[in-house]
């Protein structure tokens, strides 16, 4: 049952990811990316991380993709629709990608570290409580740093995108 759902979501996410890369129109890419993020959040649910699934939908589908769509609407994308890929320099990048993919697949399939089929210990309830306790106790400093980074990005984006004062 789990395996059937995993294969369904994985196939859908790979197909939508290919659509992101292959679509001519950036609007189609953005919508396919949204569908891909929904599949990935379903995979997070399969991994028993429901909080991460909800955060994925809120942040990626709700915030980031809406930001992308707003920027696409602000920018004239019609002239960029015509040409899809880099005209020259395709071959080294393609070779690099194929080598990278085969290397990672070979490492994953030949190693016996990844052949775990069952989780080491089954978790009990109160998972989100434990997660937030760990996040706010042991990882408090990185959490605050992330919030400062978000604030800096907010101010920086406003400064970058506003018009120059005359």
């Amino acid at each position, binding site marked *: 049952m789990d395996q059937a759902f995993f294969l369904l979501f994985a196939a859908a996410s790979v197909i939508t990811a290919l659509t992101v890369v292959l679509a001519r129109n950036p609007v189609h*890419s953005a919508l396919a990316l949204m569908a891909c993020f929904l599949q990935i959040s379903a995979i997070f649910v399969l991994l028993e991380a429901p*909080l991460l699934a909800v955060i994925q939908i809120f942040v990626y589908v709700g915030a980031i993709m809406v*930001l992308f769509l707003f920027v696409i609407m602000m920018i004239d994308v019609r002239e960029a629709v015509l040409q899809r890929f880099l005209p020259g320099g395709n071959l080294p990048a393609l070779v690099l*990608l194929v080598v990278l993919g085969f290397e990672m697949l070979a490492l994953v399939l030949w190693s016996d570290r990844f*052949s775990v089929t069952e989780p080491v210990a089954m978790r009990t309830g109160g998972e989100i409580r434990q997660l937030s306790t760990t*996040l706010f106790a042991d990882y408090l400093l990185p959490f605050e740093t992330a919030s400062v980074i978000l604030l800096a990005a*907010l101010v920086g984006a406003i400064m*970058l995108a506003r018009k120059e004062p005359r």
Partner: protein
Amino acid sequence: MVPLWWYIVLGVVLFVIGAAGVLLRRNILVVLMSLELLLNSVNINFIAFGHYYDDFRGQIFAIFVIAITAAEVAVALGILVALVRNKPTLKVDDVTMMKG
């Protein structure tokens, strides 16, 4: 149960697709979206390992990755809007003003 290496292979496939988008596409918007795809495939790996080895740090790192990604996208789209205002192009190989 789903074996662990299925998730890792899914992460590898999504990573290669995203890297292909970053390296081969010439539209800046699609390059940024492919970067999102790369970071998401890394998140799948984090959460899969965290689940199978019963460790919360995978989920915590995924939360930080998502937060930093949100910041990165905001700054990148701000730069993109400023760029298009100065030079109306969306092709990566037309933007060589800094001679990089």
